[in-house]
């Protein structure tokens, strides 16, 4: 009975946070922290109650393992980010409403993950969409909110159509039962699958629906970007999971053409995932804004997650589920680090920053660990998940997905390194000379996230155990572990050993370093300049167009943004045409159309 309390409490919490904000803004911000941490605690304690069912108003819920897992990820990201809320209270346009919508969207996601019928699912889906839509414009861009809403609603309206279709066919809305009759009818199943999964694609930001991510993530309030990227994007993964596992796609598409054992429908989606990886990587490499860069990296990582989920196998699926968690916390940590920088300096543009490590080393460390995980480098969590995904791909022989995955992996070194070098390293700008370090309240979540990223990279057993349960629930073989060794069909990975050997190498290296003569500390401007005297650190900082030679290779790329923008503009023009054709101050125009319709329909009727 704990979960219904959580859902209801979160909604009430949203209102109370609003009321508290009216009394004191800071207190309201802390209320978001308290409530989300409370939800996290209840979730962790309530693990034994997985499987419980409950109803609120006309909505029905059932707590499944996957729902529990997803909501855990979501609440974690929300709770960690909420520590930052209090610092933006005086800068936010509607601080009270922000706190309200913050918790409201969290409540919505919980409801979504616990939903046991399709209508409840849809209700909470939309609740999350509209509540987050109103947070985004408090940041830097109004257009972002509109694009976000439009893309989301394309997805959700498609889902709605799917829900109706399913209901028409099966006569029930209970998630576990509604899809059963579709197994017999591959054509309808394909339609439903495509429609359903579209909502997932829009939310994860899979090509060609990715355009909202950089816009919204890049310009949302700094405290909401981590939630968007780390949390809300994962709702799409949930829907994708539902479409594949509950539909269940592999059974329904048993008869369709298969490529390497993957039905064509799923293969096509995987190709989309692969395109997202490549595209997200390429676009992230050329971004000039740190937040947009991480946003595009979310596009790329969404591609991994989607491919893994669609595989529905022992390895890649587990990898994907784990990657979801890893990406959530790593991307949240990265966004939080950028938020700290933005809080102190007021900008997120890479070229306007530099040398932040000398003012906020902990933030730097957070960012470093986050991006190591994002890039999938051991000993962080991201490595384990990427390893699983790639091993799974190698097992199946999906070479084009693998190609994209490799490109994304290596490419991620490029883009994650860029803010590292240009924001945190390099020359400190004179105007940032007197910046203060990060406040204590900001340090707490960053340290927690760092520890988590490292912990699950070294000891993923607990996490993979839960994922194993999800896999069992989805009817596939769970990922195998013996001790700390992950046993894949074509390779093993002992994360603890990797970590220990890494530590060993590090130790030797440290000993070598310490044995030798002590170094002389010199300033950042005392560098080799071909013996030229330079006194302008802000100019002596390599930040803009970091990968210029590489960017040049694809600078004239075709852009789906432009294409979709053109479609939107066509709608706009159509509106103008409608306006010009039918609306006038002269009765004659309308009389003319009236006569035309009258004659046409009458003659048509007479003809029939």
């Amino acid at each position, binding site marked *: 009975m704990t979960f219904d309390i959580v859902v209801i409490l979160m909604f009430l919490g949203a209102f109370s946070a609003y009321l508290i904000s009216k009394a004191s803004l800071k207190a309201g911000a802390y209320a978001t922290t308290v409530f989300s941490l409370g939800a996290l605690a209840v979730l962790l304690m309530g693990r034994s109650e997985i499987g419980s069912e409950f109803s609120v108003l006309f909505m029905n819920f059932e707590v499944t393992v996957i729902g529990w897992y997803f909501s855990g990820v979501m609440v974690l990201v929300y709770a960690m980010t909420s520590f930052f809320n209090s610092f933006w209270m005086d800068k936010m346009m509607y601080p009270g409403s922000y706190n309200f919508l913050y918790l409201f969207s969290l409540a919505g996601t919980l409801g979504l993950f616990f939903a046991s019928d399709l209508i409840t699912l849809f209700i909470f889906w939309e609740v999350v969409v509209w509540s987050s839509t109103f947070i985004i414009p408090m940041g830097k861009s109004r257009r972002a909110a509109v694009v976000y809403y439009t893309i989301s609603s394309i997805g959700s309206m498609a889902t709605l159509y799917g829900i109706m279709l399913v209901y028409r066919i099966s006569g029930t809305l209970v998630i576990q039962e509604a899809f059963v009759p579709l197994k017999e009818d591959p054509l309808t199943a394909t339609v439903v699958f495509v429609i359903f999964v579209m909502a997932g694609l829009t939310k994860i930001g899979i090509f060609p629906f990715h355009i909202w991510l950089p816009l919204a993530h890049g310009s949302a309030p700094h405290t909401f970007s981590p939630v968007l990227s780390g949390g809300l994007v994962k709702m799409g993964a949930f829907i994708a999971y539902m479409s594949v596992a509950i539909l269940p796609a592999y059974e329904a598409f048993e008869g369709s053409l298969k490529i390497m054992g993957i039905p064509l429908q799923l293969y096509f989606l995987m190709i989309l995932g692969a395109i997202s990886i490549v595209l997200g990587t390429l676009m992230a490499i050329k971004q000039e804004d740190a937040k947009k860069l991480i946003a595009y990296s979310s596009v790329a990582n969404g591609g991994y997650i989607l491919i893994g989920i669609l595989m529905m196998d022992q390895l890649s699926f587990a990898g994907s589920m784990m990657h979801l968690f890893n990406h959530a916390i790593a991307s949240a940590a990265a966004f939080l680090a950028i938020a700290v920088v933005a809080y102190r300096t007021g900008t997120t543009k890479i070229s306007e920053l530099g040398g932040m490590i000398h003012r906020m080393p902990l933030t730097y460390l957070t960012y470093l660990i986050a991006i190591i995980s994002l890039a999938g480098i051991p000993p962080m969590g991201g490595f384990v998940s990427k390893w699983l995904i790639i091993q799974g791909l190698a097992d199946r022989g999906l070479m084009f997905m693998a190609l994209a995955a490799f490109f994304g992996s290596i490419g991620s070194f490029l883009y994650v390194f860029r803010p590292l070098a240009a924001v945190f390293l390099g020359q400190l700008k004179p105007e940032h000379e007197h910046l203060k370090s990060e406040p204590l309240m900001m340090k707490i979540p960053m340290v927690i996230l760092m520890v988590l990223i490292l912990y699950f990279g070294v000891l993923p057993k607990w996490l993979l155990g839960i994922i194993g349960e999800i896999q069992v629930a989805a009817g596939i073989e769970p990922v195998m572990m013996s001790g700390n060794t992950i046993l894949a069909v074509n390779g093993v990975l002992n994360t603890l050993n990797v970590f220990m050997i890494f530590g060993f190498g590090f130790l030797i290296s440290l000993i070598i370093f310490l044995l030798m003569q002590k170094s002389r500390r010199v300033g950042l401007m005392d560098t080799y300049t071909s013996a030229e005297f330079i006194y302008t650190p802000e100019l002596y900082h390599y930040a803009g167009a970091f990968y210029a030679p590489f960017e040049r290779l694809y600078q004239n790329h075709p852009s789906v943004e432009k294409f979709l923008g053109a479609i939107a503009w066509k709608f706009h023009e159509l509106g103008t045409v409608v306006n010009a054709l039918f609306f*006038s101050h*002269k009765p*004659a125009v309308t009389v003319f159309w009236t006569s035309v319709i009258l004659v046409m329909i009458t003659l048509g009727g007479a003809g029939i």
Partner: protein
Amino acid sequence: MIQYAGIMLILIGIYGLLTQSNIIKIIVSLNIFELGLNVFIISVGFVREGIAPILTSVNNHNGLVFVDPLPQALVLTAIVIGLGTTALGLAFARSIYRQHGTLNLDEIGGPSNG
């Protein structure tokens, strides 16, 4: 025959509405349209060699052929309503003339299509 006359008038009225841009002429066209309509309605009730639908001491048996009285009642109402509308239209015409100094809709201009 009289139906066709009514329909002709209706079409003339619509033609006027389609082609005229002068407000007064539009009102006139509207009136022609209504007139045609009224004629048509009357014609619906018309019965050849029918008598007035009044029971008299002579005409009180079942074999009577009488004109349908209802359309005539309807026409009366329609005429009254048409009159009201015309009056209102003319009032508008006057206001438009005061506002724009012309009665030609083409010269007045419409809402922008922006």
